[in-house]
Structure formats: structure tokens, C-alpha cells
């Protein structure tokens, strides 16, 4: 009994830490996105609240917290309330299987914990795909329950788009799964240790440098589909401002609106984490081992690992913002044609080629 309660306490502490990290990342990201977009468009971004607008996320949070919570007439109240919660919760619990740091174990009073991953389950990738699909329900429900034509159109677009691009996400990951031979994100990341030529985007064999198993095509497909799945520009058709006011969250205000927006940023962070863990070697540095290990600080090597993971995640987040600053929105038929006629064949061909190379050059 004491072991169970201790285990529960440790797990809750881990969940709390992970959620606060994600929320801090989301808050940072709202500021970071506005700043970077401003810089790229010869503007300044937020400058008023605090030095260089640094307190803008806090001000936004307080403002949204005290805003009136409007439920439109004719809305399905239960569904209307459920949708933002569903989206937010789903965006949060996806992080449970993400390994933020190296796979080390700690023994505390007889129980073994992994400090940098909340739940190292052996179906991690499958879990993330399943959770991401549930996130689409929140968007569709929010669009449908608002009793507004714009919301409904946004929800319908989200349904078609998220489902068709999720297929590409899943198929792009198959090559990686074949290379690693496991679905656990911790073990997939461990399989890429020892330099950037072991990362699955390069795809060298464990004893060689030549990129025989390269997953670069799967990587590109994954990134594009991830942008589409998180409803970001240039695939932000569910919330196309110039056509559908705000898409599926047109009728939302106050904290519910904040939930949708934070869920979008959390989803961005989640796909960045997945992309760095699966293709860019997760916590592994691009050189074998760690520098802190070489200079004799083995017990602090995890710091360097975490810094590398954060650097990769923030690289992807910056890439998303960069793409947003550059590209206009696609037309709807272009979006669907790109998804089904370009991305899907590339993902399928990648699976076949990876299987063939894996058959002739097994790892």
C-alpha cells in the first residue's frame, strides 16, 4: 500500500512537472510567435507590457480569464462546454510518453522511476496517434455545437483535413518504426544514439555512415502533415480568418477560447517533440556521447541531453512560425489533392523502399 501511494505521488509529481513545462512552453510560444512574426514582417511585436512585451502572455491570460463567457443562443450547451476541454486535455496528455531526457532510472525507497518520461509504455507512438485523433473530435464538436455556420464549416474542414493528413503522419512513421523495431519512444530515441549519422533522418546503419536507411522523405511528409494536423498556416483552413471569421472557435470567448488556443500551441509542441524524438534523435547530441561526459561530469550528462532535446523542439517550433510568416493559405481542393495525391504516395513509397533496404541491409 505504501509502495502504491509512493508510486502515485511520484507519478503525480511527474505529471505536474510535465504539465507546467508544457504550459510554460505554450505561454512562451504565444509571445515568441508574435515576436518572430513581427520581426519577419518588419514590425516589433508586443512591446507594451513589461520590457520588450515580455509579460504579454501573463496579461493575455489575465484578460481572457476575466472575459465574459458567452454561450450562443441555440448552442448545444453540453457539447459546447465539452469541446474545449476535450481539445485541451487531449493536447496535454499526449506528452505523457515523450522522453524529455535520457533513459536513466532512479531508485527512490524501493521503487524505480524514470525521471524524464511520465509513462514509458511500449505502444508510445500508437498512443500519440490515437490521442491526436481524439483531438479532432474537440474541434468538430466545437464547430458543430456553436450553432453558427462559420463554426460548422470550420469543423467540417477540420474533420476532412485532420483525418486525411493523420493518415500521412501514421504512414510516415512506419519507416521509423521498422528501423527501430519498437513503438516505445524511449527505445526509438535510444536506437539513434551515437552521432547524427545514426538519426533516422540520416539513417546510417549502427556500424556505418552511409545513409542507406534514410527517412528524409518520411521526415518531410511528417513535418508537412504535422503542420496540417495542428491547423497551422498554410493549412489553417479550419480557422481561416479571411473566410470563416475564426473557424471552429468563432463563438468561443474567454477561457474556452484560451483553451482552444493553448491546445493549438500544445499540439504544435507535441508534434515538434515527436518529430525530434523520431527523426532527429530526441535527446541525443549530434556527436557520440556528451561533452559533459568527456570532461568528467557523467552525473550531469542529462543536462546536455535535455538541452539538445529542447533545442530540437524549439527549432521545429521556429520552423512552424517561419512557415507561417512566409506562406499564404492553400485552397481547399489544393489541400486535399496535396494530401492524397502527393503526400500519401510518397509515404507509401517510403515504406516500400525502407522495407527493401531493410531486407537487404538489416540493422
Amino acid at each position, binding site marked *: 500500500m505504501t509502495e502504491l501511494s509512493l508510486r502515485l505521488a511520484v507519478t503525480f509529481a511527474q505529471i505536474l512537472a510535465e504539465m507546467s513545462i508544457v504550459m510554460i512552453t505554450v505561454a512562451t510560444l504565444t509571445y515568441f510567435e508574435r515576436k*518572430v512574426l*513581427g*520581426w*519577419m*514582417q*518588419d*514590425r*516589433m511585436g508586443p*512591446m507594451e507590457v513589461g520590457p520588450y512585451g515580455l509579460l504579454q502572455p501573463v496579461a493575455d491570460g489575465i484578460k481572457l480569464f476575466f472575459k465574459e463567457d458567452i454561450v450562443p443562443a441555440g448552442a448545444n450547451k453540453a457539447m459546447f462546454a465539452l469541446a474545449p476541454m476535450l481539445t485541451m486535455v487531449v493536447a496535454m496528455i499526449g506528452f505523457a510518453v515523450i522522453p524529455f531526457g535520457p533513459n536513466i532510472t532512479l531508485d527512490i525507497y524501493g521503487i524505480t522511476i524514470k525521471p524524464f518520461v511520465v509513462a514509458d509504455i511500449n505502444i508510445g507512438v500508437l498512443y500519440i496517434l490515437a490521442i491526436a485523433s481524439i483531438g479532432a473530435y474537440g474541434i468538430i464538436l466545437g464547430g458543430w455545437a456553436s450553432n453558427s455556420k462559420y463554426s460548422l464549416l470550420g469543423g467540417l474542414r477540420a474533420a476532412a483535413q485532420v483525418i486525411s493528413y493523420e493518415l500521412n503522419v501514421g504512414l510516415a512513421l512506419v519507416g521509423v518504426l521498422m528501423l527501430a523495431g519498437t513503438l516505445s519512444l524511449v527505445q526509438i530515441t535510444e536506437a539513434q544514439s551515437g552521432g547524427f549519422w545514426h538519426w533516422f533522418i540520416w539513417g546510417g546503419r549502427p556500424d556505418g555512415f552511409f545513409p542507406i536507411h534514410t527517412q528524409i522523405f518520411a521526415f518531410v511528409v511528417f513535418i508537412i502533415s504535422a503542420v496540417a494536423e495542428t491547423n497551422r498556416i498554410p493549412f489553417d483552413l479550419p480557422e481561416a480568418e479571411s473566410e470563416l471569421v475564426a473557424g471552429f472557435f468563432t463563438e468561443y470567448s474567454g477561457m474556452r477560447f484560451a483553451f482552444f488556443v493553448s491546445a493549438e500551441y500544445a499540439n504544435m509542441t507535441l508534434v515538434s517533440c515527436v518529430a525530434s524524438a523520431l527523426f532527429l534523435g530526441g535527446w541525443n547530441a549530434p556527436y557520440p556521447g556528451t561533452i559533459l561526459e568527456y570532461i568528467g561530469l557523467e552525473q550531469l550528462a542529462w543536462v546536455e541531453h535535455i538541452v539538445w532535446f529542447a533545442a530540437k523542439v524549439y527549432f521545429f517550433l521556429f520552423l512552424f512560425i*517561419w*512557415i507561417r*510568416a*512566409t*506562406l499564404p493559405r492553400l485552397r481547399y481542393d489544393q489541400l486535399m489533392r496535396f494530401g492524397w495525391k502527393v503526400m500519401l504516395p510518397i509515404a507509401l513509397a517510403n515504406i516500400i523502399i525502407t522495407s527493401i533496404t531493410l531486407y537487404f541491409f538489416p540493422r
Partner: protein
Amino acid sequence: MTFKAWIKTITFYEILIGMKATMSHMLHYRPVTEQYPHEKRTLPDNYRGMLALLRYDDGTEKCVGCDLCEAACPSRVIRVVSAEVPGEPTKRFSKEYYMDMTRCLFCGLCVDACPVDALGMTREFEWSVYDKRQLHLNKEQLLAIGDRSFPVREKQLELQHPNVAFFNVAFKHLPQKPG
């Protein structure tokens, strides 16, 4: 599709060009923003701001109540109530003078129409108020705006445009008015 175009398509060449453009704007960061309440832009010389009634050097109002500004105004901003100066039947002044600045479009036609230069456009523009009635100005308020915007009323020749000075001397060869 030629081979070159095909290569450009599969390597996202055009998109990369666009991303290079945005990145170069970020790296050579020169914002066009002016942080308005903290730093204000330089107004042009002929800026047409808030309207004001002016006075002569001795403090008397210039306005003679001729109603020409009211006639010239396209938005019917101005309302003048003219009256005789008591005891002097040949002189008139504006007993009441109202401006509804909510309607003013700052065209400056009233200033052009005024025969005695009693109206002027100041360089004030920060006139946003919470109550619309505060933009309904009477004569005392308009004179106050004029007093604070043009505190020095005598001609400052050193500030005059050289072309104006040229015209002033250029007519010296014409026969002067006797007396």
C-alpha cells in the same frame, strides 16, 4: 514539366526562396513601427489639425461674425450667431460660435474662407474623448485652443518663407496707395 521544373518542385525551391526572404527580414531587423504614445512622428508643415479661433495682439477677437466659414463648411460643423458691437453699429462680432468637431473632416475650407484670418488650424490631433459631447466646442473653448497653440501673435519675419518676402518687395515698384 521539364526536368528542371520537376527538380524545383520536389525540393520546394520556390518555398525556400520565400522563406529566405522572411529570414533575411528577420536578420536585418529594421522595424517601420513607431511606438506612438512614446515616440511621435514629425508632422508635416502644412498639417491640418484641430481648428481654433484667433485673437489680435491686443487680445480682441479677430472674428467679425460674417458667417462665411459656416457657408464654406461642407459638413456643417460651424454655427455662428452674429451680433452688432454695442454702441458701434458698423462693427459686428460673433456672439456665439459653435463647432461640432465630431463632423469635421479637417478640409480647411473655413480657414480659407475667413476674410480676417480669424480661424486657424493648429497641430493638435490627440482629441479622442470618452464623451462625444466634449467635441461640441463653444467660442471660449475655441479661443482657448487658439491661445495655447499660437501664443505669439505678432508676425515673425525670420520664420516667413523667403518667397513670401520676395512678393512683399516685388510690388514696391507699383504706385503706392496715397496716405
